[in-house]
């Protein structure tokens, strides 16, 4: 008797529109090469945050991939500008922060700015594919509080969180996903 076949899924990259923001032309070239190889046709590129924000409004990308450290208007500020709940653009767009920063506190700062996924350089095709697969296939709900608007930051199973940003009212919702930090640690 044949074994039951396992369902497999793949992303149709040719249906996705990307906006890439990185001030380094070599890294933009790498990203463009990887995304086109995955099958993407539309990759728009910006070399700093302000241009990226304009392109974001104009092209309405499905996914934003941004560096953090850039002159004048960086990737963190870009994320904060996109994550404005009342904005005319799409504040729910998945944002993948691709950065040379590799410290735990940076992951926390990026998460609190509303980043969807964090990918520490050096980049690999596999790690980038996995981040894109994650945001396409498993989008997280958004949370809006007085101080935060962005993807749900809860990723673990503890219901005993007593930190300053503990939510009040309603049951605790749990997302069975590894944290951004855990994912960053196993990115290669």
């Amino acid at each position, binding site marked *: 008797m044949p074994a039951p076949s396992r369902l497999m899924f*793949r992303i149709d*990259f040719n249906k996705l529109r990307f906006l890439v923001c990185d001030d380094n032309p070599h890294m933009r070239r790498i990203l463009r090469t990887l995304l086109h190889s995955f099958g993407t046709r539309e990759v728009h590129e910006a070399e700093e945050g302000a241009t990226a924000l304009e392109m974001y409004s104009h092209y309405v990308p*499905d996914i934003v991939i941004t560096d953090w450290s850039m002159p004048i208007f960086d990737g963190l500020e870009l994320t904060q500008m996109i994550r404005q709940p009342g904005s005319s653009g799409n504040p*729910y767009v998945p944002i993948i922060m691709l950065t040379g920063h590799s410290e735990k506190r940076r992951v926390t700062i990026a998460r609190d700015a509303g980043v969807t996924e964090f990918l520490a350089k050096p980049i690999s095709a596999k790690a980038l594919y996995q981040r894109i697969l994650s945001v396409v296939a498993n989008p997280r709900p958004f949370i809006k509080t007085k101080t935060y608007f962005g993807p749900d930051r809860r990723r673990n199973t503890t219901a005993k969180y007593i930190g300053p940003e503990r939510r*009040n009212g309603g049951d605790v919702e749990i997302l069975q996903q590894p944290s951004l930090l855990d994912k*960053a640690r196993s990115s290669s």
Partner: protein
Amino acid sequence: MKRSQPPVLDIQSFADHHIITQPNPLRAAVRQIDPRDADDPVARAEQALAGLSGEFQSWMETECERLAAAHETMKLQGVTAATRNELFRAAHDIKGDAATFGFPTAAAAAESLCRIIEHAPDLAAVPSGLIAHHINAIQAIIREKAGVDTTGMAGELSRKLRGVADEYLTAVNRDRPEHLDAILAPSIVPGR
């Protein structure tokens, strides 16, 4: 993806927060495939990346020139926000790119330099040789890559630089616990 009407949002309101869920707008980009489908987009991308590898050496040389130029500007104009930021960004780019381009030991030396720039309380007071040694090491690693196999020596050089830099940073930050914690915290990138 085809752009149509804004998605219908499901909003649950609680005492101090809202949970907003929308139908997955990218669902149409996920398709089921036959398990026998041999197409591997990751392997295809790795192959394309390998096709670019002939350019990596010259890219790294360009990055090194930018780093050296930023250091020269800082020496001429002194430590200002602009000169500090440009030196940091040049080092930070090498830290992020070099391993992808086949120079992991240059990335390690660049990371050590980034830590000095980020955590030294007064960049102007950093011993002049410490920054210069890092830049010279990065340049040497890139330059010698095409010659003999220098991985062992380059790795040793990077480790020694990191040791000296960490010793300096630990000493000058002994009264700045937030910096000391960051200096002593392990990297989230495996192997660093």
